[in-house]
C-alpha cells in the first residue's frame, strides 16, 4: 500500500492503495466516481476511458502509480451538468440505448474534438475504434460527433 496524491477533475485526492491498482478501480471503489465503467479490464472495450492530461486513456490498465501529477478527467468532471458540447450532442441525438458504454464514448469523442475540431470520417473512426457499443449505437455516435464538429 502506498499513498498517492491525485488530481481528479481539478480536485486533489489522496488515496492509499496498492500501486498496481488500475485507475479504474481507484475511481470506482475509492473515489466513488462510478461514471467510468468496467467492461473488459484489458483495454479492449473503451468503457473505462478517461482523460489523462487531456488524452483519452483506458483506465483499466493504468496503474495508479504511473499517474504522478498528471490531470485526470472523468465523465463527472467533463461537465457535471451535462453542458459540454459532446454531452449536449449526445442528448440531442438521443444516442444512448442502455447507456453503459456511453461514458467511454463521450470521453473518447471529447478528446478527439479537443485536438481536432473538424475530424474527417476516418479520423472519427480511428479515434473511436477502441470503444465498443454492444447496443450498436455507432451510427448516432458518429452523427453526434459530426454535429459538434460543425458548430
Amino acid at each position: 500500500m502506498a499513498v498517492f496524491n491525485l488530481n481528479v477533475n481539478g480536485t486533489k485526492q489522496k488515496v492509499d492503495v496498492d500501486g498496481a491498482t488500475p485507475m479504474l478501480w481507484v475511481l470506482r471503489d475509492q473515489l466513488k466516481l462510478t461514471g467510468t465503467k468496467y467492461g473488459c479490464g484489458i483495454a479492449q472495450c473503451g468503457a473505462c476511458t478517461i482523460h489523462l492530461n487531456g488524452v483519452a486513456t483506458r483506465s483499466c490498465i493504468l496503474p495508479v502509480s504511473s499517474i504522478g501529477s498528471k490531470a485526470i478527467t472523468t465523465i463527472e468532471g467533463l461537465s457535471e451538468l451535462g453542458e459540454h458540447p459532446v454531452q449536449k450532442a449526445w442528448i440531442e441525438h438521443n444516442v444512448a440505448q442502455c447507456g453503459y458504454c456511453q461514458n467511454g464514448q463521450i470521453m473518447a469523442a471529447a478528446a478527439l474534438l479537443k485536438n481536432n475540431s473538424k475530424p474527417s470520417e476516418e479520423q472519427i473512426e480511428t479515434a473511436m475504434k477502441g470503444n465498443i457499443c454492444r447496443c450498436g449505437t455507432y451510427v448516432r455516435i458518429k452523427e453526434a460527433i459530426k454535429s459538434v464538429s460543425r458548430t
Partner: protein
Amino acid sequence: MEKQDALHSRRSFLKSSLLSGGGLMISFSALAEFLPSKKLAGPGMPDQWFELTGYIKITPDNVIKILNPNPEFGQNVMTSLPMIVAEELEADWKKVVVEMGPHDSVKLGSQFTGGSNSVRMYWKPLRDAGAAARVMLTEAAAQTWNVPAAEITAKSGMLYHEKSGKSGTYGEFASKAAAIPVPKGVKLKEVKSFNVVGSSQKNVEGLKIVTGKPLFGLDYYKEGMKIAMIHHPPAFGMKLKSFDASEASKMPGITDVFSLKLYEDGFEQAGFDTRTFNDILVVVGKTTWDVMNARKKLSVQWEPIADTKETIRGFRGKQEVVVPAGLETTESQYAKMQERAKEPATVLRKDGDPETAFKNAATIIERTYTAPFLAHNTMEPMNFFADVTDEKALVVGPQQAPGWSEPTLAKLIGLPAEKIEIQMTRMGGGFGRRAYAHYMFEAALISKKIKAPVKLIYSREDDMTYGIYRPMYIATYRAALDANKNLIGFHVKGGGIPEHAIHANRFPAGAVDNYLAEGWELPSNITIGAFRAPRSNFNAAAEQSFLDELAEAMGKDPIDFRLELLKRAKENPVGKNNEYSADRYAAVLELVKEKSGWNKTENKKYNRGVAAYFCHNSYAAHVVDMVKRDGQPYVERVYSAIDCGIVINPESAKNMVMGAVVDGIGNSFYGGLTLKDGAPEQNNLNRYRIIRMREAPQIVDVSFVENGIDPTGLGEPPFPPVFGAVANAVYKTTGKRVYNQPYFNSTISEKFGVAEKNTKQQGDKKLPQPKIKKGRTP
C-alpha cells in the same frame, strides 16, 4: 407465456390510495433527481403524493409522477411506457417526472422485460390507468365546482369548465380524486387524437447517462458493502472438487473465501433457473482489485461431473431433465450434429404429400446451414448487490424478470417474498441474458453467509465463460421444383445443441402445398437460453438465404418471389396453424422495396441483399447494401421496414432498429463461441469479436408501417432478418453463398462448417452464376 397472461389479468387490478407518512413519501433529494428542471428542486418541495392507480402520483402543486413498471435495458421503456400513461392522462409530457417503479406485481404487473413484450403487454393496462386517473380527477373537479363531469375537459395537466370559466390543475384535485374509486372500462382515446404517443421524445435518463450518474447495478453502493467475486469451473462438465484458500485468504483486504452451492440436490428449479455451475468458490474482500488479486492465489481442483438430474417446473409443467456428463468440444459438436441430422426426427408439421412431391421433382435444391454458440457479452457484466439478514432482504441490480426470480430467491434464502425487496437498476444491456438470475441468487446467498451487504461482480472473463448462450444450430432445407420451376415441395429438418430452432408454423408454411418440418435435439451440459430471439436469428439466416437461392434458381426477383408465396398464403393458405399474417409480412416487403429503391438503376452499384422475417408478433424486412472496402465485404447502407403496430416513440424506436441492424451485422460477421474440452476458448473481448464503429453502416434508414394496430413489440423482430439479408448481400459481393455463421470468422465457420457439402448438392449445376460487381471504395 401463460405466466404472463395470468399476471396480466392481475395487473388490471388498479388501486387508488392516499399516500401520507414517511414510508410512501419520496425524499427531497431522490425526487430532485427526477425533476425535469432545476427550478422545481427549490425549497417547498412537495411532501404529499396522491396516488391515482399504481402508476401515477400527483402532488398538490401539480407535479405529476409516472412510474415505469419494467426494467430498462436500452429499449427505452423508461420513456415509452410512461408516455402511454401520459397520453390517456392528458398530462403535459414535458412536466412529467418519471421514476423506476418498485418491484410490485400487484400494482405494476408482470414487470418482465423480454420477448419484445414490454410495450405490447403494458399498452392496455397503462392506457387504462391513465384514463382512469383522468376520469377521477375530472370527477373530483365536478364535485368541487358542482358542475356535470361531462362538461369538463382535461388538457396538459389542467381541467377546464368552459361555461363557468373555471379551471384548475390536476394537483388541486389530486387529494379528492385519490379517494374516488377507480372506474373500470373508461373509454380510451382514439388513435388519431394521440399527441404524446407517436411523438419523438428524448430519453428521460439522457442527462444522467451523459453525466455518468450511478444508474447501473455495478455502480450501486451501500455503506459497509463488500465486494465478492466467484470462481467457477473452467469448463462445462466440471465441478469443484477441493480447494486451498490459505494463500488467497492472506491477501490484502480479503475477508472471506468459501465454497457455495446454489441449488441443493432435488431443488425444484423454475423455468428460468438455469443451472450452469452449481458449486462455486467465493472470494470476498474490501475492493474489487483486492478480490481480483486474491483469486489468482487460489489453488483449486476441479473434477468431471456425472450425469445430473434436474427437476424443473417451467411453462410446460414439472420435468425431470438429465444433464449429461462430458467435456464437449466444438469440432465434435459439429460432427455430432451432422451425424444426428441423418437420423429420423420428430415431425413438427406436415402438409400435403411432401414425399411424392420430392419424388416427382425435376430439381431438388438442398442446403445445410449451421451456427455456433453466441455469448451475450452485455456491456455491463453480470452483477448484483444483496443485503440479506434473518429478517429481510434487499437485492439491487440488473434483472429482466424480477417476478420470475423472486420465488426462487425466497426459497433459497428462506424468507417469504414480502420480506424481499428487489430494486431494478438500469441494465447495461440484456439481450435475454438477464432473464436469468443466478447472479442475484449467488449474491444473496453470499450476503446471507457473511452477514453483510455485498456486491457480487463478474469479471468479463467470468461473464463470458459462465454463459447461457444462444444454442448451436443446424438445419437442412430442401425444395422440390417441377419442370416449370414451380415450387412444389418444401422440407426443413433442423436440430441443435441442446434444442432445435424450427418454428414449424411460420412462413413459408402455409404457402407451399407439400410441406414438412422436422426437428431433433442433442442433450448437452452447455447452458443456453434467450438471446434476442435465439431460434429466429438462426432461422432468418438459413431460411432467408435459402429462399434467395430458390428465387435465383427459379429466375425470380427475390422480393417478388416472397410476395408470390405470401399471396398464396393469404388467398388460399395451406394448413391451419399459420402463425403469421401474410398481409403484414407482405407490407414490410413492399415498404422496403419502395424505400430502398429496389429496382432503381442508381442503386445497382451496391450488392443488395434482402430478407424479411416474422417473430415476436412483429414483422421486419431489410435491404442490405454491401460493397467491398479494402477488399472486404462491408455493409455501407441498410433500409429497414418494420411493422410493430403503433410506434410509441419513433426516435427511440428507430434507435432500437438501428441497434438491431448493427448487432445483426456484427453477430453474423464475427459472433461465435467455441469450446475445447468443455472450456470456452474465448474469454474476453480480445478473442471474442464484437462489431466496432468502422464496421457499422453509414446509414440505417428505418421506416415503420402505419396501420394503427396495437403495438406488437420491437426488441427482437428487426434483429433476425439482418442475418439473412447480410448472407444474401455477401453472395452478390463475393459470388459465394455463405452457409455457416459467422460469415467472416475463419476460426469458426471455415474450420467447422459444412460449406464443402453444400457445393456438391444436386441441382447446383442448373444454378446461374452471379455477376460479380467490381468492388468500390466509398
